[in-house]
């Protein structure tokens, strides 16, 4: 299976279907026990720890279900944590602007709502201008209104920055905004389909 550049891909599947494991392998966070994965022709599955680190450092952004912000750093500093080690990053304040949090940059995570925290996490992930953005249940901990805001941000980034985005979710409705949908169960890819007509994030109902 091959995924073209600059697409927004949604992975669907029940709990335990293996989507997080696949994402972790693709993101260089974990090793595959079997099989191969390639990134622009390079075998991720054969990289050393050091190479995987460089891969994550320069090409990959992550957004997690529980935001995983550093509690002792402000929103801006959380973003700086990543721009600090990136080659050609966005300005951290600009990245926060992109997710609509320009005015909240000096707040600590404890002072932000769940949706705001997740948007900081997205700003942190895109600030390094990653080639791929991996999102593991980005709306899983959010209500529908906030969840939709987060999806809109992802869609904008995909469109404006041409960043490839892979989203894991068990909310099937999310698939309606994807270029491509991959369904998984029992650790296997059951189906891959290309979305003929994509909905905008605002139109999604769940």
């Amino acid at each position, binding site marked *: 299976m091959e995924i073209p550049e600059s697409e927004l891909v949604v992975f669907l599947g029940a709990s335990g279907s293996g989507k997080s494991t696949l994402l*972790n392998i693709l*993101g260089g*966070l*974990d*090793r595959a026990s079997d099989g191969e994965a390639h990134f622009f022709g390079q075998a991720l599955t054969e990289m050393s*720890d*050091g190479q995987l*680190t*460089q*891969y*994550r*450092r*320069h090409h*990959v952004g*992550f957004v*997690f279900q*529980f935001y*995983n912000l*550093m509690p*002792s*750093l402000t929103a801006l*500093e*959380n973003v*700086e*944590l*990543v721009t*600090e*080690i*990136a080659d050609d990053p966005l300005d951290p304040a600009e990245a926060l602007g992109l997710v609509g949090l320009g005015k909240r940059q000096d707040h600590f995570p404890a002072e932000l709502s769940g949706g705001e925290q997740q948007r900081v996490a997205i700003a942190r992930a895109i600030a390094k201008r990653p080639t791929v953005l991996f999102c593991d249940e980005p709306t899983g901990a959010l209500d529908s209104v906030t969840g939709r805001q987060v999806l809109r941000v992802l869609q904008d980034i995909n469109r404006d920055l041409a960043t490839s985005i892979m989203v894991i979710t068990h909310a099937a409705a999310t698939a309606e905004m994807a270029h491509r949908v991959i369904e998984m169960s029992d650790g296997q890819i059951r189906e891959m389909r290309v979305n003929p007509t994509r909905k905008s994030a605002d139109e999604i109902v769940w």
Partner: protein
Amino acid sequence: MSPLDRKLLRDLWRMRGQAFAISLVVAVGVMLLVMMNGIVNTLDETRQTYYDRYRLADVFAPVKRAPDHVLQDIAKIDGVGAVEGRVIGGALIDIESMAVPVRAMAVSLPDFGAPILNDVYLAAGRKISPRRRDEILLLKGFADAHGLAPGDTISATLNGSRRRFDIVGLAQSPEFIYATAPGEIMPDDRRFAVIWMSEEALAAAYDVDGAFNQALIDVARGVENKSVLTAVDRILQPYGGTGAYDLDDQFSNRFVVEEINQQRMSSYITPPVFLAVAAFLLYIVVSRLIEAERIQIGLLKAFGYTSAEVGWHYLKFILAIAIVGTMMGCGLGIWSGRAMAASFQQYYKFPFLVFAADPSVFLTAILISMSSATAGGLIVLRRVFALMPAEAMRPPAPDDFSKSASVIKTLKGVLDQPTRMIVRRLLRQPRRALAAIIGIAAGMSLSVGTLGIMAGFEDSFNLSFTVVDRSDATVIFIEPLGDKTIYELKREPGVFEVEPFRSVPVVLKHGVKSHRGEISGLIEAPQLNRALDADLNPIAMHGGGIVLGAPLAKILSVSTGDTLVVEVREGRRPVFEVPVTGIAETLLGAPAYMDLEALNRAMKEPNRVSGAHLTIDEAQSAAIYERLKDMPGVAGVALREDVRKAFRRIMDSGAGAMRFIMAILAAIITFGIVYNSARIAFAERAHDLASLRVIGFTRNEAAYVLLGELALLTFLALPLGYLMGVGLAEAMAEGFSTDLYQIPANVGLESFGTAMVAVLVASVLSGWLVKRDIDRLDLVSALKSRE
């Protein structure tokens, strides 16, 4: 500043309480190291400087009476740099407040100019005017003890004639740093004086005009004292020389050196133990702190931070704590070292202190604390780095409690659910539990050890003054007298018992080994002052042989059956051989005992005694002392009560204060360890405790699960702490003991009990501090903090 460094500072601030507790433990270990090293170096440096500045002689050569021209012969000996003759003599000073006259030593000063050797430090007043026979300088310590000052007069008896003298100045001297009356061990400012006066006046008083009775000799650098001693002895022999000796055998110097060596040994043994315990704590705490950060570590790695970058970040965190601790320790160490060195001046009469610290000690302190912190961090970081970021970010898999199931099943009827949770957790993580137990036990062992040493000193003290010495007073004669004096003493009204003894200054030789000391001649089955071994059994005298204390036997490397050569250093100075018939483990010191009659036989001086121990009727004591004072031949009377008080003062200052400080530091470390254990356990379990609260446990029930575990760990640590403490006390006793002094460690129930109370107080206090946090636990956010 990079965001990671900002995170570092904020994390440190958030954990400031715990970080400070860890720093404090490190600080205490470092402080002890720096302090003890500072004391040793300061005392040693001060001693050297004092000796050099006031030109203390290398060799002392006592003689009966040698004409001044003999000094020129001595000066011609190879290796003699300078020589000076002087007059010394015993004296008695009458002090109104003292029941018995105070023993004193009169020392001559040249009538013109400063002495070539053994100069004095003038602490107050002025020097003696040339040829003024009624002017004296008085030993400062003695003057202070009796409130005497320049301008006062005192009455003293020199060679049998009583005179009044004007005190014109107070003085100190490097040869009387440790000022004790001859025959006594402990210095007592109140009961021993030195007076310096015009040589002409003193020579007249002791009938040595135009002559001297002690030669002071400066030996050139690089020359062996031994060859000079032999040559001097040969020259002085015809004039009644009683044997030259060098600084090693000079009373004051010997004790000062012994004491400094004792401190040095102790500084080699005790601080490393304290530091090791601090290092162990640092290791445990740091490893568990990092374990708790595994999600953040996984996250940083997910962002693309390398293991080296993440590792360095956490190392900085640890090093910051260790550095703060080390700096505090160095500061406190320097400060307390100075304060302590000053307190040693209580009985070392140094007119000044030369503060000296060995720079390498700071380096050692920094190295030890940094490396143990780094080691603790690296061991855990390696474990975390071995995980892929995805794994690190997942909370660790729930612990597998199935192994403990069978144990728990049997306990089911006995223990309630929360208690079973405690037992399960300990069984599940035996290594962590063991580390916590060892940590608490190690802290406690410091307390047990230091208390055991203090109790050991206390025991020796009590035994010395209740079991060993049961007399009320001891009379010392100017020179050995015939035993008819004993009958006279017995006839004194109010005197109950009189027990004569003979004490002979000697040099004991065995092959190349030799020791300068004294032989105590004891009557058969003495009752008032007994020779007891370490088990408090009387030491048996075997016929004409000599019985040695074990340390002395070691110095001379002799065993039972060997023969010693005894060179007597008084009277006709006979030399005789005597078989070693026993070696006894003694309580204190390095004694040599002989049967009184056998000793006198060997000396060819039958029926001579040096003094007697007395018991008296308390009601008549004043009258008895009044009469003893005027009895011919009596050099002085030592009251047991006075000696006991002096001993007590010495025990409580200097080294005693040091032991006290160690006990305090041990308590601080114990608290630091217990508190940190509680803190970390809480951090690790906040989530579980919040869950318990959510499902309906009360605050107290939730607290019980955590604090019960701590209590159990603490109780398990008590016996281990005791055992480790016993070992530590023995090692420290070894360090405190010198060739001459054996300090027993006594880790009795009392030390154990006190240390146990310290640990329990620390536990209760820590428990209370953590309980407050359990009560404040934010249920919602605690549950959110992990999946």
